[in-house]
């Protein structure tokens, strides 16, 4: 697989985010403040139709062509793990895991995901709670459901936003173990959006990009 997530230079208010990319299997960390993270994700996940093709700033380069951000293909190839934004409260955990498949009209993938659901739920430790209504849950459960959804979608790239922040230590250790084994199993690339380089994920990043708000000062360094 040679899928690469690209984004062009982005001006978010006074902040400039440099053009960069994340390749399949590569872990990249993008350090910037929360408003910039949020704006970056809004840009990535906003629906985009043919009429705004000239303004496309993010895309996934695949063997079969380009998938523009906001398109159906893009959302099924780029997984997301957003801090405390993994659940829809009035759905059950099962429905939450299967939601993208229940929405996008692809019966083959829906059946495949339904078959794999038990295995995934077992891996993330939520088998017994699958039919419970989501309601209010901890950051840990939000993160687990996001991870479970990624395991079902099998994305080329995962965009994670501070999923490790705000978990109690025992949950953090447990989540680190589960996410490590999930990432190994998937082999996907990872773009980790965080406000601090000490985000506690314990992942081995190939690159870290640091964006400083309002100063247009961008540092880039290799490795950890």
């Amino acid at each position: 697989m040679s899928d690469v997530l690209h984004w062009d230079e982005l001006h978010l208010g006074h902040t400039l985010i440099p053009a960069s990319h994340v390749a399949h299997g590569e872990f990249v960390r993008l350090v910037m403040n929360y408003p910039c993270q949020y704006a970056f994700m809004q840009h990535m996940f906003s629906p985009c139709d043919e009429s705004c093709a000239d303004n496309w700033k993010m895309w996934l380069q695949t063997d079969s062509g380009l998938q523009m951000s906001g398109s159906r293909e893009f959302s099924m190839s780029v997984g997301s793990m957003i801090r405390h934004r993994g659940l829809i409260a009035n759905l059950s955990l099962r429905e939450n895991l299967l939601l993208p498949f229940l929405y996008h009209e692809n019966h083959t993938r829906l059946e495949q995901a339904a078959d794999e659901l038990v295995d995934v739920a077992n891996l993330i430790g939520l088998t017994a709670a699958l039919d419970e209504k989501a309601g209010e849950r901890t950051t840990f459960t939000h993160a687990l459901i996001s991870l479970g959804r990624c395991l079902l979608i099998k994305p080329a790239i995962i965009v994670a936003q501070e999923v490790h922040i705000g978990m109690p230590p025992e949950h953090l250790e447990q989540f680190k173990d589960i996410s490590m084994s999930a990432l190994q199993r998937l082999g996907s690339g990872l773009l980790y959006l965080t406000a601090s380089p000490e985000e506690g994920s314990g992942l081995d990043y190939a690159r870290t990009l640091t964006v400083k708000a309002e100063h247009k000062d961008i540092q880039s360094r290799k490795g950890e």
Partner: protein
Amino acid sequence: MESQRNMMMQLHKRADRVGTISLHMFSELRRIFQMTLSILVVGLRMSWLSKPAVTNVAFRQIYFTGVQGLPWVILVALGVGVLAVYNIVDFAKSIQDMSLIGRLISNLLVQEVAPLIVTILLLSRSGVAVVTELGTMHVRGEDLALRSMGISVQEYLLWPRLMAFTLCGLILTFVFVFVSIWLGGLLVSLSYEINFIDFLIEVRKGTSFNELLILIFKGSLYPMLSAIMLLNRGCHVGREPNLIPVHATQGVLGALMLILMSDAFIAIIQALA
């Protein structure tokens, strides 16, 4: 000279205020129009019918708005029907013109009261729930979660609510009319000097196809306008949970004002036509 300058300053301030309010209203109307258009575009494309996630939400909304609201509509229709039929029959008998029964029932109960009362019932029962649910979803950031899965907020969240409100509003208006005329007439005929069959014949005589069309028009327009107002408020709660009740109140009151203004507008158009 000084007083003239002060007067000019005051005039400028007032003009400024009027201008700001007008611009605000214009941008709000434009936003509502764009939102409605985007919801209708995704809804009327009908592709949602093949998406289990959306049909599931649509069924839930229809159940909550229509099925659970049915007993309340029947109860209110019974009370309003008995009162309206009793007073209309009494009035018609007092001036010895029984042909008035059909016309009054058609003009008052069918054309005016039924669509208004059903919409007010829907607003009081489901209106607050719609704004609160959407507002809470925004506060929780569920809109971003949905978009990150490639799910259209218009198709998944807004269209099922708009569709359920409009469809259930129309059906409940017909239920209201049916219950208020039949059960109201039946109860009044038990205790009053009018035969139920004669009453129904008078109602039939006083009702034309045009009135039925107006009932369909108002019965779907009022709930739809209410839903648009509620969805607009629900989508603008932002990230502040303490603003949810404020927006819920604004949504329900705004919808109420909107349907009353629409009713007055339709009445003027009918009078001019």
